[in-house]
Structures are given as C-alpha cells and as structure tokens.
C-alpha cells in the first residue's frame, strides 16, 4: 500500500558508515578553498551548471554532498569530476558561499595525489611544466607571426619556471621529475 510517507520512484539508498572515507572528506574541508561543509543542498549550483544542462548524470550538488560525506567511489566514477568547465556559475550564485567550483578543483587535486589525472589535463600540465606554456613555441608559429608583422613569441624563462615548480608537487604528480632534460 502506498501511504503518504512513501516516496515513489526514489533513487535514494541507505549509505553505510563503512562506505564513508572520512580522511578524504577531511582533506577537502581542510584545504580551505570554499566552505563545502555549510552546503544545505539547495541545488542552485545544479540549476546554474552548463554541464548538467546537457548531462544530468553530472551534478555539482551531488559532488559537494559526496565530498562532505566521503563517498569517494562516487567521485571517481566515470570521469565525472573532470567535466567541470570551471565557469564559476555555481560559485557566483551559491547562497551559502560554498564556492563549489573551487571545492571541485580541490577534489581534483586530491584525486591527482591519489594517482589519477584525466589524460587531457595531464597533457596540458605536462606541456606547461616542459615549455612554460600550453604548447611548445614552434618555429612555424613565429613564421606566421612574422608574416603578420608581429614580433616573435616572447620566450618563457624556463629555468625560473622550473625552479618555481621544484617547490611544488606538480612534477611528481605528472611523473615528470626530469622534465628539464627533455627537449
């Protein structure tokens, strides 16, 4: 019998305490970017998200909830966490100051430290570590620029960039410890 307390077609399920990865959830909160723990699940982020408009399996609201509870498995599923376009629409409108876009970036950083980075972002980051920009300064680009009357691309000070990045973990994350030696 369907009483008034029954919620039809519910997708919800009971979460067991054993499933919760409290270490993960603590590291998201402690990173200090945004305030995930004050989220009251209003869904303004979801309603504002351009990704969710086209793919309902992606939801910033669910991501924040999963991160706060430590439902790490859900965050690792199907590359969903890498779909955020960093458009900041959620951060702009969140009535609680959660800053979901920044929290999602933090979650990605933590997942990266666990050893997984989406291939496309890994390629971008690797180029920046090696060349100081998203692409190597190719000679043909300077030829095009020259033909247009533009000066050559100003060279990145790669030695300084390498020195700066030595003091972060990015090369380790990318498996690029000896990037300076590569062409």
């Amino acid at each position, binding site marked *: 019998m369907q009483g008034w307390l029954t919620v039809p077609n519910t997708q919800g399920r009971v979460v067991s305490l054993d499933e919760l990865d409290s270490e993960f959830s603590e590291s998201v909160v402690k990173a200090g970017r945004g305030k995930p723990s004050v989220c009251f699940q209003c869904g303004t982020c979801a309603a504002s998200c351009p990704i969710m408009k086209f793919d309902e399996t992606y939801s910033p609201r669910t991501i924040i909830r999963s991160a706060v509870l430590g439902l790490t498995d859900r965050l690792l599923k199907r590359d969903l966490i*890498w779909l955020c376009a960093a458009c900041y629409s959620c951060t702009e409108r969140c009535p609680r100051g959660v800053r979901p876009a920044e929290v999602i970036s933090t979650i990605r950083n933590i997942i990266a430290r666990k050893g997984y980075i989406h291939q496309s972002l890994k390629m971008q980051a690797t180029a920046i570590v090696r060349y100081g920009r998203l692409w190597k300064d190719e000679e043909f680009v300077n030829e095009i620029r020259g033909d247009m009357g533009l000066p050559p691309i100003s060279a990145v000070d790669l030695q300084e960039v390498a020195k700066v990045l030595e003091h972060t973990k990015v090369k380790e994350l990318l498996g690029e410890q000896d990037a300076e030696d590569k062409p």
Partner: protein
Amino acid sequence: MKYSYFPGCVTPQRENSYELSARKVIEKLGIELVELEGASCCGFSLDAIDHLSSMALAARNLCLTEEIGCDLLALCPTCSGHFARVKTELTENPKSRSTIDAILGKIDRKFEGSSQVKHIARVLIEDVGVDTIRSTVVKPLKQLKVAPHYGCHIMKPSDEVRFDNPENPKLLDCLVEATGVTCVDYTEKKLCCGAPIMGVSEELSLDILREKLGSIQDRGVDAIVTLCPFCHTHFDLNQARMEEKYGETYGMPVLHLTQLLGLAQGYQPGELGLHENRVSVDDLLELL
C-alpha cells in the same frame, strides 16, 4: 597610458589575429605596451591538478609586471581572472601568502600586490572610456547586427573579478555599440561556450556549442563577437566539426572584439588578420 603585455598561451599560439588587431586598436587609442620578458602561462591550467603550482606561476608573472612598475594588460579573460583570484588569495590568506613568498624567494622575487591586472575590455571601459573609443571611429558599422559572447571568466566569480554584472552583462555590448553596430540579445547569452571540456568530452562540449550557436542563429545576426581567445577558437574552429557531426550548416563568422573595433577605426581587414579567421568573413566584409 602604459601597460605590460601578458601574452598567455592561446593568443600567440592560436589566435594571432587577436593580438594583431588588439595592438592596432590600442595604438590608435594612445596606449603603450611593454613586453613582459620571460612570462609563462598564467597558471590556470595547472589548477585542476595542483593549486599551489597554479598560484606560484601566477605570482611569478605578477612579480614581473610589478618590477616594471605598471599594470598588466591581458587579452585572455582566463588569465586576467586567474590573476585576480590569486591576488585575492595571496592578500586574504596568510598561509598561502607565506608559502608563495618562500617559493618566490628561491628566485629572488617578491610579490607585493602593487600592480593591477586588467583584461583589455576592462582597460577600454575603465581607463580609456567608451566616448574616447567612439571618437576614434571613422567608419561606423551601422549595417551590422552581431551577437556578443561574454564567456565566463571575464566576470565570474564577481566577488574576485569585479567587472560587469554576470546576471545581466552589458559592457561588451557597450564596446561593440561604440562602433555603430547593433547588438542583439539571445536566449543563451550567458551560457558557457563549452570549450574547457573539449578534451574530456568532445560530445558534450559540442552539444553546448550547438545550443549556443543555434540560439545566436535564431536572431539572424551577421557575426559573433568574442573577447576570449579560447572561446573564439571553439566557435571559429569547431563549426566545421559540428557541421560534420550534426549535418547542419552554420557558416557564422566569429570576430575578436578588437577586429570589430579596428574595422570601425578604419583599418583594412588584412591589417586586423581577418584572413586568419577560419569561418569566412567575406560576406560580412561585403556588407561594409
């Protein structure tokens, strides 16, 4: 007026016509650019993997402009937005500040926070002024009807970027209308173009672009006007890919804001790199 010029990644590598037209337009407005020797990527693209690295690169770039002693002009709103966010964090978060200070110390630099970072649209609105721009127009483009695309990072998050109103943006319209062009509103004016996720899901990225372009086509405009090199590439380069995928015809010219301003200032299309645009602008130029 003097600014250091921050090249970024996408503009010098993929959108040279943006840099070329920007240099022409601001020259006419009496703005001098100083090259920012040794600058790297702004750092934004490292943020998804390691926030500290993304801040460190941004802070180093900011040191370079502070040492020259002038404000920085960027053509890419993702760069100017990233700098704005990092500046806020370094000013408000002592822990981040001391970590970055220590890293910069290794290369004998120090972040002071003394330089402003401005996207070219902000320079045009706040420092030059729409009236001054209008005074340089020698060829009003009254025949044209365009759809302005704002993108995201030019104004979001507004508490850190502090430019225009993300819920009802107007400032790109103001700049475009200074040339005599008519700006039209469209349903998806505030939608992201989809470019940032092209590498993660091409399908989703093109679905977003299709929605955006469809909403623009419905208004019967002659062109889209952009102020972001990354959005520009997505609109301009990927129309062909979408025509293949969806079996639809677009052929919608995409102009950099500075190309439009340059045309109104009397520059020839070739001087503004219009031949570099992937979607043909020939029909558009015939209207002028």
